[in-house]
């Protein structure tokens, strides 16, 4: 009995550790040269990816800088607290400003949507990815 309990505790601890480290690419949006958007929504099997939905994305150029708004929806009946950040990429797929963008804490009540916004660090950016982690 003690052995079973011990095994269960180890397994639970391990799964909590694994979840705590997971980073999911939730949505990737590329602005084509003609102004059209190519959007890829990732659906990983991790906890957050199962409960979060991308309800919509909007992009616009402010001057020569790409501005993005992403609507994230909590599709579960629990309050979700997690972190998100924008990853900005240039035309050749190189990440711009590596390590300069912080994770933002966010909390969304059940079935509610929240808009998150970001502005590209410089004019070389034409696509972005929103990352989430718990």
């Amino acid at each position, binding site marked *: 009995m*003690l052995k079973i309990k011990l095994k269960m505790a180890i397994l639970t601890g391990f799964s909590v550790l694994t979840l705590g480290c997971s980073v999911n690419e939730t949505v990737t949006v590329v602005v084509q040269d003609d102004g059209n958007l190519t959007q890829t929504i990732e659906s990983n099997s991790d906890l957050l990816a199962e409960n979060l939905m991308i309800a919509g994305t909007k992009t616009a150029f*402010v*001057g*020569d*800088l790409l*501005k993005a708004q992403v609507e994230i929806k909590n599709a579960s009946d629990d309050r979700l607290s997690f*972190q998100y*950040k924008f990853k900005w990429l240039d035309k050749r797929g190189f990440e711009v*400003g590596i*390590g*300069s*963008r*912080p*994770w*933002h*804490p966010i909390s969304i009540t059940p079935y509610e949507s929240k808009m998150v*916004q*970001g*502005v590209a*660090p*410089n*004019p070389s950016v034409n696509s972005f990815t929103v990352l989430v982690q718990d």
Partner: protein
Amino acid sequence: MKFIQVFIVIMAALALASCSTKISYGDATSVETTTTGFGSTDLQTIAEKLVDDLITFPPIVQMTSERRPVVFVDKIKNKTTEHIDTESITDTIQTKLLQSGKFRFVDMTTVQAVQEQMKFQMDSGMVDSNKAAAFGKQTGAEFMLYGNMSSIVKRRNDTKDVYYKFTLKLVNLESGIIEWASEKEIRKSSEKTFFLN
């Protein structure tokens, strides 16, 4: 009997674990919630929000599409009860603005060092006078960035609530007109919890 043996082994393992020092590198951009005090996440989010606001403000967008204005960064007044390195916040803001390619800066913190270097170039006789940096050629700033940081702290029993407000303004040095201003608010709260309620 077996249970006692297992208990002793666990306690010994815990005692050994508590003696060891583990050093690891973490993600400098991850959310830090060690205390309700001003932290790295606050600094990074303040800088990001204000820079995003400044470079997308329509009159600034129009101006920076034609030229790269020269800006001087003044000190941020810390009106909170905490010791906060506000220069670190303005350093991050300045770096992000420079990297956007929209602004240029003059650095008043290095005036003395620059002066000494230029005097050395002019007077020491060791530098080719044709290649020495000449006095009176520096560019004056057109704008000044300055601001305030304030906080409201409230406590009740085991609950603490901290509210920070960071305000940044851009003033035209010649006309005195504030061309842009923005704020970032942060609310943090903590509650002492016990495992055995």
